[in-house]
């Protein structure tokens, strides 16, 4: 396994810059997840690492070797495609061993590697089947098997779970996590699903419009998002945002009143800010208080023990608060919502985190 280092990478299609100044280090054995909305450049970045896209500038180094001008096969990477991309005219065993055959590896060795991969992925009974005779989950395992047998330096996954149904997606996600431990593999994984990102990654890279917005450990991104985009992207339901401006000793939220919070250095009165707070850090409160806002219940979603209340504040902003247990809330109720001061995020006018 190897380290992947990307420096100042850029890529343009004509005049459109799809990747801008990407700097990223994927440690040896690390599981890095690229996440972002569609069109953010995450797949292009992955394909650039694979060598399926030419880059316009910068350098990609895999295991200490600059690979910018190498063909995909010479980069010692293996890619798992969203569509699986199995060769339809070959059985499972041939699919997995196909690349090795052309690499000039002896038949006995190919057979050994294929059966090893089949054992790990529980594909042994299926080796003689054609892809069309397999279920979606099985096809995905074959695609992963094809990657394993090549013993690559880096595994690249391009939204591998998107085509699976919800239950299978969770199973396969767990299997990929296990596989990562078992093989001690360096993995770069693209997804638009932030649950996948949170559960699988050692490091999450949030991308937007061709740039890296933030990279770091999943919980760091969750608890200390660097900007509004990351704050809104990571977490489900999304973080609530309240627009306001800095006033002496707190933040004025217009019609919602003013709340007293500790202001970070650099926050001067009159500054436009956005206050962010996650649903689980808001609770239904009885009566007014320091960090309490008046609200009207718009909708209550019960998921069982927990649930979400959609609340319309005095300013008209709708926020979502998590509720636990039996609250007896119903649409139209007038109530108050309390903000947890330890989990308030303050963002400046440019979207960056303050403090």
């Amino acid at each position, binding site marked *: 396994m190897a380290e992947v280092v990307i420096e100042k990478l850029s890529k343009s299609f004509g005049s459109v810059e799809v990747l801008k100044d990407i700097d990223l280090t994927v440690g040896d054995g690390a599981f890095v997840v690229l996440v972002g909305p569609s069109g953010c450049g995450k797949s292009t970045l992955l394909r650039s690492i*694979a*060598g*399926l896209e030419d880059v316009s500038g910068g350098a990609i180094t895999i295991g200490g070797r600059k690979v910018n001008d190498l*063909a*995909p*096969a*010479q980069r010692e*990477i*293996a*890619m798992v*495609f*969203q*569509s*699986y*991309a*199995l*060769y*339809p*005219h070959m059985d499972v065993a041939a699919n997995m061993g*196909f*690349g090795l055959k*052309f*690499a000039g590896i002896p038949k006995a060795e190919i057979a050994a590697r294929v059966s090893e991969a089949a054992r790990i992925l529980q594909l042994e009974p299926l080796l003689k089947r*054609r*892809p*069309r*005779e*397999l279920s*979606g989950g099985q*096809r995905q395992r074959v695609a992963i098997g*094809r990657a394993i047998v*090549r013993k690559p330096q880096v595994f690249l996954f391009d939204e591998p779970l998107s*085509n699976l149904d919800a239950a299978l997606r969770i199973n396969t996600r767990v299997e990929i996590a296990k596989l990562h431990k078992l093989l001690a593999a360096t993995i770069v994984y693209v997804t638009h699903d932030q649950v996948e990102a949170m559960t699988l990654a050692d490091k999450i890279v949030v991308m937007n419009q061709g740039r890296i917005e933030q990279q770091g450990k999943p919980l760091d991104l969750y608890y200390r998002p660097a900007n509004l985009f990351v704050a809104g992207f990571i977490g489900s339901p999304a973080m609530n945002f309240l627009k306001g401006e800095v006033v002496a000793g707190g933040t004025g939220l217009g019609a919602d009143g003013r709340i007293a919070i500790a202001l970070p250095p650099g926050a001067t009165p009159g500054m436009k800010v956005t206050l962010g707070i996650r649903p689980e850090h808001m609770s239904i409160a009885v009566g007014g208080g320091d960090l309490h806002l008046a609200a009207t219940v718009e909708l209550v979603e019960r998921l069982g023990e927990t649930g979400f209340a959609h609340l319309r504040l005095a300013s008209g902003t709708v926020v979502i608060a998590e509720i636990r247990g039996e609250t007896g809330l119903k649409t139209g109720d007038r109530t108050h919502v309390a903000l947890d001061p330890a989990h308030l995020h303050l963002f400046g006018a440019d979207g960056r985190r303050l403090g």
Partner: protein
Amino acid sequence: MRKPLSAFAVHAILGLYTLLALFPIVLVVMNSFKAKRAIFNTPLRPPTPSNFDPIGYARVFDDSALPFYYLNSITVTAGAIFFTLLFGAMAAWALTEYKFRFNTLLALFLSIGIMVPIRLGSVAIIQLVAELNLINTLTALILVYTAQNLPLAIFILSEFIAQIPKDLREAARCDGLTEYNIFFHIILPLIRPAMATVAVFTMIPVWNDLWFPLLLAPAGGKQTITLGVQQFLGQYITDWNAVLAALSAAIVPVLLLYVIFSRQLIRGLTSGAVK
């Protein structure tokens, strides 16, 4: 009740058309087994024990040259199919997969070939073949038929190749295949149904053609069967037994080829590759 009725109508129309199309062929085959007198007296009746006479076949197969004419036809047809498919698929792959200068222009140029009948260029072709010293060779015929069939082959195969998922080619590239290996081991097996279609399209006009054999290989033992049969058609006397027998026998090889290719026309070969 509407559905079975319309299905019946469709089948009735198709059946009628089949009858119409098969009638002359049945007539030829039927009469090839009859004595000469019976051919003229009762042309529409099948052979009976009293007028059964395989004399035509005997004459055809006794003729020392005719088996060679069959072989010539088979060689030319097989050669033309082979090169049409090989070069057609290669060109189609290049035109669909690679971006290069004049790509569109080249594709357009090739598709013009579909619209312009090659026979218009007969004089130029004769000159060219004569200069290459290829008159009375099968090579000349194979080259001309390959050129004649390439445009349509490229057009059809491009459409099919464009439908092969991009991921599949990229997976092969990640697997370390060269572009040639991708073509021969991934693309060709996946467009087999399309190639069979093209082969059928190519085969029948080539097998039946009289024009180019007459111009380019009319002698020297290089005649094709369509041309070879002409020796039984005289200005004053025509050996109908032999003509009908030769024509009937000429159906067999092309029928066999058709059966071979039609087995490749299996649909859904690509299903299961990508979801």
